[in-house]
């Protein structure tokens, strides 16, 4: 909300410097986003000389002014009153004047440049005299105008949702006086005798609240013989400072009282209201929930369809306004209104919020306040304050009494017992109970002190204060959190490690970055088309949709990390960066039930766990793009990904990983496979299909892999074990074979391990060669290392195993062994 400094000073002295006031608000929990001083930059100027402008028909003169600089400034003014030697206020270009939307500029008139503006009292927000310049009685040219004039300042204040009482000037004046130890003078909230009529209001209006929970209190007064017209300058200035444009003296009063006391009011034209009903002599106010399909036309002429949870105010059977949200067009105050029906009510906050969200493009001043839930003590106070002001400004009389339906009275706020020592226990600092009592009293609380114990009764506008911790906060913020000494909790280690630190995936990240891949973080939601195009490990699962996505592009939960990484690749390619490798570790979201519910799924006191959550597998995905489009380059990338994954899996989990060639949707046939670890399929790897590349607008070729790591990597990493280096020498034998071109090497390696048995320590692939002469065959060279753990291996023994491997490759793979 916008808060005017001069307005605040109606209720308290608050003569400390502005910076002190701002600091006091911040220190007690009210954020101040911005401070605008009216006419900041304006300076005192002395008029040296005035020269008529002959071309002007309206007496415009050229003024030469001394603004404390070396050279005088020359500008035009139409004001009749200044004389040479007068001290005036000059607003140089760029100055913001109260109520102006644009800063002051440089004008060109009569062929002359006129920089800035000489100000009248109106332009400085100081008075109603617009006819001439404000002539100062003191000041030195060049001196800031704020030093010689009581210019207003507007604070943009952010109030936390628990404090609707601070959305007004009296509320913030209370906070300030409490913080600074000043006295607060609240505005009068009764109708003075002189403005009251003897005629009882009950003869003119009745109120029936049909939904006391939706409307805990509804109060009305009637003011007659009102002359609608502009409100006085002081009120218009107040409203403008707070960002509300003046309309007429009745509507302005309702806005003024809202900004003063925090209670929004609504003013009806009594006659128009009565006529909108079923036509009795007295107005019948009925408050109820709307029925589906009822309509209302707002002041802008727009029709709204209502739903049954909207709270409405009716004249007899007919809706005239939606509570706190929309005022009807045909019952509002107009120029010839004579009798005003004034309403102040308490509404159920959530109901107002729901209606406001549905019916309004953005919340109004009234709906914002009602949504947060206001005190039900406030309406009669605000009603009387407003009725008296309308009568005073519009020359009318307030009918005797008010009609007040308070059957839905909110439960009273119970007193809070604060045992001795409780405040210290929460705040961690010494709190004297008398000191606490004083601080609370300044904020409007009633406090009874009994030794060190306190019995605290919050004021009606503090329904947010319920428990000792709430009181501790009030005391803490009053005394200042700076007073709480910083202490460290004892360094006790928890008895149980809840999760290992650092998490296992951290080490995976280090391995991958070490291998030259850059880490990406992509969104958890993706577009449905991207999700369908490349399913990765999420193959066969339909993505969980968002019910209220921000855009279609982010509308389903990812089932694979690969689409996001492809999008990241595209971003890089569009920036001209090619040949990059990215990885991401993150969760995908798979519909259905997760195997084990996460801890804490059963709320305390409930018998059964809440319904199961979808599975969130932790995936590792990698992509590696090559710009040259060559098959062998991308094959090398694929090989690199494979090696990195194998290393990561082995290093971190002690798992040996193999890849079984297989067709995988989205990957190129013949260049894809399934990653198998300990017999279980845990991932996919391959080169992206050309269609997929095109769909993601990727150039070049891309190797990709995706692996589920939460199952693969043990929660607690295996303790490293020491292995004795081999004591006996090894026998190394090289084996060269040719095989049909389509033979996967994995098959050959598998056969070799199977046939050679335990003596085969390792098999290394030295070379793969495809001759141009024979496209049907390719040749491999392997190095087989044999070793026995307990003796020096006999060369013949190794040779026998070697021969067995060679024979098996010949019979099972159609290999020819080159001897």
């Amino acid at each position, binding site marked *: 909300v916008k808060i005017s400094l001069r307005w605040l000073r109606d209720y308290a002295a608050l003569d400390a410097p502005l910076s002190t006031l701002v600091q006091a608000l911040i220190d007690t929990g009210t954020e101040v986003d911005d401070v605008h001083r009216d006419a900041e930059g304006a300076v005192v100027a002395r008029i040296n000389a005035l020269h008529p402008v002959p071309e002007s028909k309206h007496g415009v003169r050229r003024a030469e002014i001394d603004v404390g600089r070396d050279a005088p400034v020359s500008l035009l003014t139409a004001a009749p009153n200044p004389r040479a030697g007068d001290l005036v206020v000059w607003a140089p270009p760029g100055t913001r004047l109260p109520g102006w939307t644009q800063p002051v500029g440089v004008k060109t008139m009569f062929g002359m440049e006129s920089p800035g503006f000489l100000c009248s009292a109106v332009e400085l927000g100081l008075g109603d005299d617009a006819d001439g310049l404000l002539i100062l009685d003191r000041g030195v040219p060049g001196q800031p105008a704020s030093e010689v004039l009581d210019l207003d300042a507007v604070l943009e204040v952010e109030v936390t949702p628990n404090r609707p009482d601070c959305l007004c000037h009296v509320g913030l004046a209370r906070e300030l006086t409490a913080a600074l130890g000043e006295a607060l003078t609240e505005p009068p909230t009764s109708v003075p005798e002189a403005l009251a009529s003897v005629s009882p209001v009950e003869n003119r209006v009745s109120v029936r609240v049909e939904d006391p929970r939706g409307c805990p209190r509804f109060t009305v007064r009637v003011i007659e013989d009102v002359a609608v017209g502009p409100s006085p300058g002081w009120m218009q200035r107040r409203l403008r400072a707070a960002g509300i444009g003046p309309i007429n003296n009745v509507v302005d009063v309702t806005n003024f009282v809202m900004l003063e006391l925090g209670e929004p009011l609504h003013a009806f034209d009594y006659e128009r209201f009565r006529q909108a009903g079923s036509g009795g002599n007295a107005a019948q106010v009925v408050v109820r929930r709307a029925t589906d399909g009822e309509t209302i036309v707002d002041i802008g002429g727009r029709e709204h369809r209502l739903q049954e949870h909207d709270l409405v105010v009716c004249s007899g059977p007919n809706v005239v306004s939606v509570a706190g949200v929309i005022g009807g067009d045909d019952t509002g105050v107009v120029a010839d209104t004579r009798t005003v029906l004034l309403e102040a009510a308490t509404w159920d906050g959530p109901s107002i919020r729901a209606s406001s969200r549905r019916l309004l493009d953005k919340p109004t001043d009234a709906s914002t306040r009602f949504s947060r839930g206001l005190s039900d003590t406030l309406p009669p106070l605000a009603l009387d304050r407003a009725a008296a002001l309308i009568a005073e400004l519009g020359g009318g009389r307030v009918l005797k009494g008010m009609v007040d339906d308070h059957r839905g009275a909110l439960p009273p706020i119970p007193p809070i017992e604060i045992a001795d020592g409780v405040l210290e226990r929460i705040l961690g600092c010494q709190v004297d109970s008398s000191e606490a009592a004083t601080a609370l009293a300044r904020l409007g609380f009633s406090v009874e002190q009994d030794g060190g114990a306190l019995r605290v009764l919050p004021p009606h506008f503090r329904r947010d204060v319920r428990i000792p*911790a709430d009181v501790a906060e009030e005391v803490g913020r009053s005394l200042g959190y700076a007073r*709480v000494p910083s202490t460290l909790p004892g360094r006790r280690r*928890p008895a149980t490690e809840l999760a290992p630190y650092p998490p296992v995936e951290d080490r995976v990240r*280090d391995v991958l970055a070490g291998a030259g891949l850059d880490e990406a973080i992509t969104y958890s939601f993706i577009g449905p088309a991207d999700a369908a195009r490349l399913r990765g490990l999420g193959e066969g699962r339909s993505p969980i949709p968002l019910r209220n*996505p921000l855009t279609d592009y982010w509308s389903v939960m990812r089932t694979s990390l690969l689409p996001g990484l492809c999008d990241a690749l595209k971003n890089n390619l569009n920036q001209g960066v090619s040949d990059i490798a990215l990885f991401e570790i993150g969760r995908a979201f798979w519909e259905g039930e997760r195997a084990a519910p996460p801890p804490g799924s059963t*709320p305390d006191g409930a018998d059964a766990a809440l*319904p199961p959550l979808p599975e969130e597998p932790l995936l590792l995905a990698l992509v590696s793009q090559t710009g040259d489009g060559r098959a062998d380059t991308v094959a090398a990338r694929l090989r690199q990904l494979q090696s990195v994954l194998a290393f990561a899996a082995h290093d971190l989990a002690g798992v040996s990983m193999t890849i079984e060639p297989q067709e995988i949707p989205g990957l190129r046939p013949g260049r894809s496979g399934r990653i198998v670890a300990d017999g279980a399929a845990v991932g996919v790897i391959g080169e992206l299909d050309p269609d997929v590349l095109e769909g993601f607008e990727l150039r070049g070729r891309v190797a990709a892999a995706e692996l589920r790591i939460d199952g693969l990597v043990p929660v607690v990493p295996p303790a490293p074990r020491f292995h004795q280096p081999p004591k006996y020498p090894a026998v190394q034998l090289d084996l060269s074979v040719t095989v049909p071109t389509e033979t996967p090497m994995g098959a050959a390696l598998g056969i070799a391990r199977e046939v050679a048995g335990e003596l085969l320590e390792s098999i290394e692939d030295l070379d793969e060669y495809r001759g141009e002469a024979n496209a049907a065959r390719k040749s491999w060279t392997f190095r087989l290392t044999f070793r026995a753990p307990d003796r020096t291996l006999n060369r013949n023994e190794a040779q026998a195993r070697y021969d067995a491997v060679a024979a098996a490759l010949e019979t099972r793979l159609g290999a020819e062994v080159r001897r």
Partner: protein
Amino acid sequence: MDDRSTIRSEALDAVANAADLGALDAVRVAALGKKGSVTGLMKTLGGLAPAERKEFGARVNQLKGEIEAALETRKAKLGASALAAKLASETVDVSLPTRPEGQGTLHPIGQVMDELAAIFGEMGFTWAEGPDIEDDWHNFTALNIPPDHPARQMQDTFYLPPRADGTPMVLRTHTSPVQARSMLDKKVQEMLAGGGSLRIIVPGRTFRIDSDATHTPMFHQVEGLVIDRTTHMGHLKGCLVDFCRAFFEIDDLPLRFRPSYFPFTEPSAEVDIGCSWKDGELRIGAGESWLEILGSGMVHPNVLRNGGVDPERYSGFAFGMGIERIAQLAYGIEDGRLLFQNDVRFIRQ
């Protein structure tokens, strides 16, 4: 006599003039080899009278020794210059600009997380996690956010299709649901009953409907929770003061605890760190300005109760911070959206 002195001067000159080790060896052979000049002198020894033979022999031997010594000296010298020449021919210009090695980079978010984890790990915190897709009980109700609270509005929260029994499902709007999950964890209940304390930090992805230069619809938070038998705001302050000073590596970094409001803490405080602005550039440390970086407070008794923890016997504090914001501050990143565009030119910085 003449022969000897000629041979001597010729041999010593040749040694001195030998340009490299090969030439020197040729000199050695010419003087001391089988057919060498000195060897030739030795051979004349047999034709001399026995009286002369002794003296002549001694002189030739002396000459031989002299030439050998000269050869050695020269050889050492030539060897040193040969090595020097070899070294000279193999120099490396060590001032060449370095080339980036094939090392990848961790995302800045991950780097900040690692640092936070290390600092809180030092303070005895362990790591806890929870699901990204939450039921509304854990995300809201358990945290003292009643059904009609504004935070639950569709405008702020991403909703997913409800479960079969009608339970609304959301993308968690904060990491705070893990508060209830941790407190309700059987292991934790046993730990608390056994006199232990709960100290966790919870990193993770969070989601809110928001997208502009300072907000992305997905962001990361780290939540901290401490539950013990006697915790108060002094502990909260001590813990966060220590953390901020360690993280920003400024020993006297001023902190300001400003009263605020969160439904799940009471009292609540926002935490600002001191900073200053110079020529549009932010400097963290004592200065004229403050920068908000954390939300915190004493755990609301209702939240403890929902977590199965008796607020009469235990109290706690909690805090939360946005990792993007911290990363932006730590690395001077102005537009937070850059963090998820994964431009490697950005990540590699």
